[in-house]
């Protein structure tokens, strides 16, 4: 399809250049391959998600899927431009997919109306690139751990390229936003730089209870203290309008009592749900940057952003790209320490080996695998519950998998520098699954 729609794209994909990525091969084949072989998952179909789906579809990608657990609300309509008044109450993912397919010919978008945790890992593994348009740290952290979970390292602790699942993460808050490229194992993952997120503002409970000074104090009092006092046992649901209305009216009464102005229903929602007013233009700018990076990763038509763009439109306009570095010991994306073991090695022997291992020198270790605590050195209650595992072969405790990721906590280091630490280990068992092709990567 060489119609007018791909005219601008063709300038990037059909011509050589000197600012291109390392393996760039311009030509119509590239354009066709992008259409045929690249599958993109967009996580979130809200303010950013709507923009992303539109931008990616118009950037020539044909196979898109979108996942979002929310339904459309009236308050979304000012910026989530794919939705109309009659769509209120419908799943965002479904309506967004339908609208973009109606307007952009040739694109296929599969919607998923569910929580991101509801999908099997296999679901995420099928995409070439995952693009995030989310508003929470929890959801980003989850997707990041899933994508980094596919990453494998070779024996030199170098990431295996075919296991790298690229992510492009966008985020906005009012007039501010960011776009970043995460190539697990190559650029810092979300967890490497989680400290970038400012701590949440939390008011002391006693201030709320005794000396409120602001409208937000009154709202948090109604939300955190008064709610429990009146509704014993019933938990507060921020998505239930009746609950929100109740908090608003209690907050208003309290504000009146203390002579504090400014409590409104919108502010109540804002404080309780931690909402910062969204700005349509910020979403558009951040989404454009994300879509472009996605195109660059897939096609190689230019080097990718390295690796974190911030945008600030509060006063004038300021954008900046910062190259953050990986945390080499990151528990999520790092290679971890490699250990090769006999299948007969018991958990006790394994723990003893950690003391001798030159990269670890770890004593008193506790061991965790796949969400299970194999051994806990403390507290005594858990030590007792896990002690019986010590005599069992680690291979069996790891469900007879030839390779696996184990996390250990203990005291490590030498002399005065001994300190408690948490390490990731890449364990492989000798003489198991040699014929298994998976082994080549893991060991």
């Amino acid at each position, binding site marked *: 399809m060489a119609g007018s729609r791909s005219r601008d794209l063709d300038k990037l994909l059909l011509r050589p250049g000197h600012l291109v990525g390392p393996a760039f091969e311009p030509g119509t084949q590239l354009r066709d391959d992008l259409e045929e*072989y690249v599958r993109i998952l967009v996580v979130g179909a809200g303010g950013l998600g709507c923009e992303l789906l539109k931008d990616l579809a118009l950037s020539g990608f044909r196979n898109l899927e979108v996942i979002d657990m929310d339904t459309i609300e009236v308050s979304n309509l000012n910026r989530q431009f794919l939705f109309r008044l009659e769509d209120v109450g419908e799943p965002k993912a479904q309506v967004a997919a339908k609208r973009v397919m109606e307007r952009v010919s040739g694109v296929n978008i599969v919607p998923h109306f569910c929580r991101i945790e509801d999908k099997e890992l296999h679901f995420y593994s099928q995409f070439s690139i995952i693009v995030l348009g989310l508003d929470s740290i929890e959801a980003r952290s989850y997707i990041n751990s899933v994508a980094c979970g596919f990453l494998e390292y070779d024996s030199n602790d170098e990431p295996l*390229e075919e296991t790298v699942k690229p992510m492009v993460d966008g985020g906005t808050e009012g007039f501010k936003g960011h776009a970043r490229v995460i190539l697990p194992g190559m650029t810092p993952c979300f967890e490497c730089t989680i400290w970038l997120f400012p701590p949440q503002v939390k008011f002391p409970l006693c201030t709320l209870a005794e000396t409120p000074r602001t409208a937000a104090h009154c709202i948090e009092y109604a939300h955190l203290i008064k709610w429990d006092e009146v509704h014993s046992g019933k938990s507060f649901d921020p998505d239930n309008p009746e609950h929100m209305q109740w908090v608003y009216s209690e907050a208003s009464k309290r504000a009146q009592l203390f002579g504090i102005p400014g409590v409104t229903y919108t502010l109540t929602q804002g404080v309780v749900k931690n909402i910062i007013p969204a700005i349509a233009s910020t979403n558009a700018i951040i989404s454009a940057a994300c879509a472009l990076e996605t195109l660059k990763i897939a096609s190689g038509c230019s080097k990718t952003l390295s690796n974190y763009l911030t945008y600030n439109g509060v006063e004038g306009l300021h954008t900046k790209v910062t190259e953050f570095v990986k945390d080499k010991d990151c528990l999520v994306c790092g290679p971890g320490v490699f250990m090769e073991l006999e299948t007969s090695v018991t958990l006790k022997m394994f723990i003893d080996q950690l003391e001798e291992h030159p990269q670890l020198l770890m004593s008193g270790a506790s061991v965790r695998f796949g969400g299970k605590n194999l051994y806990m050195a403390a507290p005594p209650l858990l030590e007792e519950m896990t002690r019986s595992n010590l005599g069992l072969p680690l291979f069996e405790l790891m*469900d007879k998998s030839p390779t696996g990721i184990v996390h250990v906590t203990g005291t490590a280091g030498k002399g005065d520098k001994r300190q408690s630490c948490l390490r990731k280990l890449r364990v492989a068992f000798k003489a198991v699954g040699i014929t298994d092709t998976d082994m080549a990567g893991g060991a």
Partner: protein
Amino acid sequence: MIKLFKVKEKQRELAENSNGKPPVKKQSAGELRLHKDISELNLPKTCSISFPNGKDDLMNFEVTIRPDDGYYLGGTFTFTFQISSIYPHEAPKVKCKTKVYHPNIDLDGNVCLNILREDWKPVLNINTIIYGLYHLFTEPNHEDPLNREAAAVLRDNPKMFESNVRRAMAGGYVGQTFFTRCI
């Protein structure tokens, strides 16, 4: 990465439905950090911890404190801890399960302890919080009141505060409020 995507997409089409590896449960970074906190707990004799959902769910647990000094000597107080998947970016949610007559703990179990809210830092850990809670029983303070009546009594009439605490812990009324026995 188009070449790689192309190869993988062709493989995927071939391998459709021949799902290889068994799914491994996804662990959050929060769980791992909590695993470290828990395995390093160093509690005073007066505090104990239990895991109602068994050894593999560390994200929900209970801490029981039996103060060995001060107004609350002899009482037993249980706190529930809920840990989020982005711990330690976010502080644990802690509530007191035992109804207690205390200036800094209200009758619904909300606790006014600075490190649980405004002063939480990711370098703090579960041990710090437990020591902080223990400290609330040895040094209740009337300056951060969550139970205003109790705080006023502690400030104006410590003798009366002491007898109110004894009465509440033994199981009985303080003013209009009934407290169940926790000795």
